[in-house]
């Protein structure tokens, strides 16, 4: 539930920001970073459902084909869940590389789904740019998410003590 309260508003704010202040600019993919954070921090069924919801909201907000982003984010969550059993993501450079790779994976999955629905979309080089930007900003955003979650936990604990 905590994850819902944090990541859903963050995603809606991010999508609003992207559509008004910075349309067309390569911004880090917050949804991929949120999914990555949730999956390696402590994977759970709630995390899978939230990944689906974030993808669905992104699809609805951006006017894309419903289900494409939802599918790719759930896939990414499962992939990170499996990888995190063997690899630790404590190093910022490892996180950056993984975030970049996952953004690329998201793009490729969406591209494959769109191709299956007979929509001709080019395999844009901008996808690589988006992956690079997401990778570069990953350590900052993951630190931000960690802080946000810690603030929330402290607040809840404080409330309980009273």
């Amino acid at each position, binding site marked *: 539930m905590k994850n819902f309260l944090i990541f859903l508003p963050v995603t809606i704010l991010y999508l*609003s920001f992207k559509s008004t202040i910075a*349309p067309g600019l390569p911004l880090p993919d917050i949804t991929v970073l949120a999914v990555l954070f949730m999956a390696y921090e402590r994977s759970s069924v709630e995390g899978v459902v939230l990944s689906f919801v974030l993808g669905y909201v992104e699809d609805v907000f951006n*006017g894309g084909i*419903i*289900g494409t982003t939802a599918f790719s984010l759930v896939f990414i969550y499962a992939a990170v869940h499996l990888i995190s059993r063997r690899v630790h993501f404590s190093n910022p450079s490892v996180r950056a590389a993984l975030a970049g790779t996952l953004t690329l994976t998201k793009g490729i999955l969406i591209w494959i789904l769109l191709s299956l629905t007979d929509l001709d979309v*080019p395999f844009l080089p901008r996808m690589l*740019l988006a992956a690079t930007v997401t990778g570069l900003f990953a350590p900052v955003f993951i630190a931000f998410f960690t802080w946000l979650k810690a603030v929330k936990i402290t607040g809840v604990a404080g409330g309980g003590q009273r």
Partner: protein
Amino acid sequence: MLSFIKRHQVILASVILCLVSLHLVSTTRKGTGGDVIVRSVLSVVTKPVQSALIGIRSKVVGVWNGYIYLVGLSEENEGLRRTINQLVEENNRLKEELGLNARLKELLRFKDKTPVKTVAAEILGFSSFGPGGEWMRTLAINKGSGDGIKAGMPVVTPQGIVGRIVETNRFTSTVLLLTDPRSNIDVIIQRTRVKGVVEGDGSGGLILKYVRQLDDVIPGDRVVTAGLSTIFPKGLLVGEVVSVDKGEDNFFKRIELRPAADFRRLEEVLIVTGGGISMKQGKMEGTGAHEPFGRESGRKRRKPL
């Protein structure tokens, strides 16, 4: 069995939700689709956020243009700087008003000239689909079903066609841009009257399809709506031919177009609310129902997933 499910619950949940997603893709692939309730809730939540962000952006741009460049002058004379700042601020405001005035005048002229009923709307935001790309583009406008807007209505500017409404909520609507690969319009080359179908190419440009090798098309030709379908009135400018190639199948040419409307500079648009109207040499003709999510042209059908 229970322990197996418990041990692999994340993977099982992922598989189930992946299948649900694939089902959604296969059922909503033709349009923007989606749950109307989710869209309405998102629209109500995000409209004030988007309006606030647009306001912040205008203020920041105003401060940047009005103050930052004038910091040096403050060292010469405090009073003079204040006056200059006030004048610059006023000038910026007037320039903005002037720009708005010019744009609205142009819209009004176009509105008067066009024999269809239109409603003006402001753009709330652009949304692009695909990671970092422009595969699919839609925009949100500040007029919705409460203002009489319905799915399928064409959206235009004096420069040319912008797209069509694909989704309406009470306060806002979503416009599917001309450059989106899901957009299809029956068109005609203005000079030679050759017919074709314009589709978005998924990267901000347009492709003119189904023009035969023997048809006369050259770069610079203007392409206008043919008015064969129920959505777009005849004679609206769609774009200009920028390149003509032989194509891969030796039967149809491959023609690239530049959209007439500059989507990066759009601020206001007109929605044609006439309802199933086509213009023929200045006259209007009612032509039936809209086709909100379907193709404007029936020439090509997508194969099922």
